[in-house]
């Protein structure tokens, strides 16, 4: 049988560093030295530098608050991949934000076990408490892997639960005052379920 022509992309995937004309040069993007060094260190941890794309996007998000187009170009220039490639990665993942978000991020679980215990109400309460304050990004989220403390929320990447709807307001006030958030409800403070 004659061999049919095959688009190289089928065999090799769309290789993000082949399109060299689309990769920005470092001097064009004004990447802060700190960010550049961080991404270079990350690339050095993997046998293939492209594996650092998610960690690099985390670094961009940490630096700018979200994955800004400029930040993505900077990371792309350091990693020698196209910005479009990094954008495609960023847009796939729920925790990487390609639009501006508030400084404090609150993800309220609304999946099965949390829903049964009032996760929807908790989400409403957080939304009401943070309303119109641009410092806060509140969103419903799929299972966060903490059904034992349902209903729960992840506040700035730390888990709290089980939460009463009224505690949403307390947490927002504590964040505004830069105080410890709901210290008694932190996951880290819980004992083992069987130890009682």
């Amino acid at each position: 049988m004659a061999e049919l022509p095959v688009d190289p992309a089928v065999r090799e995937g769309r290789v993000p560093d082949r399109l060299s004309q689309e990769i920005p040069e470092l001097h064009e993007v004004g990447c802060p030295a700190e960010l550049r060094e961080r991404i270079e260190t990350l690339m050095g941890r993997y046998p293939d530098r492209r594996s650092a794309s998610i960690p690099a996007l985390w670094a961009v998000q940490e630096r700018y608050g979200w994955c800004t187009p400029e930040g993505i170009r900077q990371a792309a220039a350091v990693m020698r991949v196209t910005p479009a490639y990094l954008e495609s990665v960023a847009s796939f993942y729920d925790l990487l934000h390609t639009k501006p978000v508030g400084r404090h991020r609150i993800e309220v679980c609304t999946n099965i076990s949390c829903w049964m215990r009032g996760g929807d109400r908790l989400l409403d309460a957080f939304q009401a408490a943070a309303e119109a304050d641009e410092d806060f990004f509140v969103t419903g989220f799929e299972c966060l892997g903490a059904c034992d403390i349902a209903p729960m929320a992840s506040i700035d990447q730390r888990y709290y639960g089980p939460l009463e709807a009224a505690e949403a307001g307390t947490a927002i006030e504590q964040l505004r005052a830069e105080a410890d958030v709901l210290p008694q409800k932190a996951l880290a403070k819980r004992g083992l379920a069987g130890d009682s």
Partner: protein
Amino acid sequence: MAHRLEKRVLLEHAEDPALRTLDGYRRLAGGYETLERAYKEMEQDEVLKELEDSGLRGRGGAGFAMGKKASFLPRGDMAKYLCCNADESEPGAFKDRELMQRNPHQPIEGIAIAALAADAGHAFIFIRGEYDEQADILDAAVAEAYEAGYLGTNILGCHRDLELVVHRGAGAYICGEETALLDALEGKRGNPRLKPPFPAVQGLYGGPTLINNVETLSNVPHIVRHGAGWFKGFGTEQSPGTKVVSISGGVKRPGNYEVELGIPTRELICELAGGPEDGHEIKAFFPGGSSSPVLTAEEGLDLPYSFEAMAEAGSMLGSGSIIVCDDRVSIPHLALRTARFYHHESCGKCVPCREGTNWTVKMLERMVRGEATPLDLDIVSSVQQNIIGHCLCVLGDSMAMPVGAMVRKFREEFEAVMENPELVVDPHAVVLGAPETLGAAT
């Protein structure tokens, strides 16, 4: 003190915060003694044989024999990899979180020993981005292990190298699927790959790759230390060992409990987790995370909690995560909540999953609004049938199986709600009482 029904192996000493540190792990659990013995005294085949003989089945969901999987890796000088799957994202599962948080060195020692069996020189822990706190704990533990010479080059002077990197994901359930995990680890969108080739032959960077769950790898040091025979002394013939079971939903004491496999399911739910709240009864439960077909209380409570018993009952043990629904939970709303999750998480690569999850959500929404016809129940069932087995990975099946089971087993309830949606007073707040404070903040 652990409950009398618990059998703690992986969670032994887990109540002691010192266990997180290298010193504590060594002092309390004899940590890294097994690694030392394996690296200094054992050959690759000896370690592999111990793992194969133990019959340890994967704890991530599929339940495939871990030793057998490791034996599939070809021999030779090519670069081989080991990935620890810590992407735990199945609704209802939270055991790996607890294992990593309380005893991070245990999976690290397991990875190092399994790397010996697989002859892997590079290992990765792929942890979901939401588990930031646990990733920090792992980072600290990995640094300690490098410092002590258990990782890195020329480990314990044995001329073997192992690099271990903690890789944080960024929020996508699909990355727990092993080939999607590999794509994500290679820096791409987490789309599943066509199998074969299986990762054991062609995985990360095209090299042979062993992928195991956190709990599976946490078992490895214990098996190599005490021997396969010891391990088989726990559990049943086809499900040897202990299992950390996550129990949540309508029970008084949700949490992780480590038990011997084969324990009566009723003891798990009603004694360890305290059973349903007073005045309520168990209506149904997911025996193995949200992708397992639900079992009614009559069907499931008296079964032994093992891989084989759950499979025989038409469901599965999965990752070992029980979600209990009591008599207040509306099954049509539960089906909708379940379907929405898979719809959100579908990567979109295969049509039956992408479209099937979308249509299922739309039809279930019509049902709970009272806008559906009885025929829609048959259509929803046939959509589920057309998803199963027709995609690259099992994400679509993971919706189709539980939703299909709910429609089949609770058809009358669906019909009643479709006829009269007001039956469900407040579907957005099926508020069960607050869980008992047992095991709460200390």
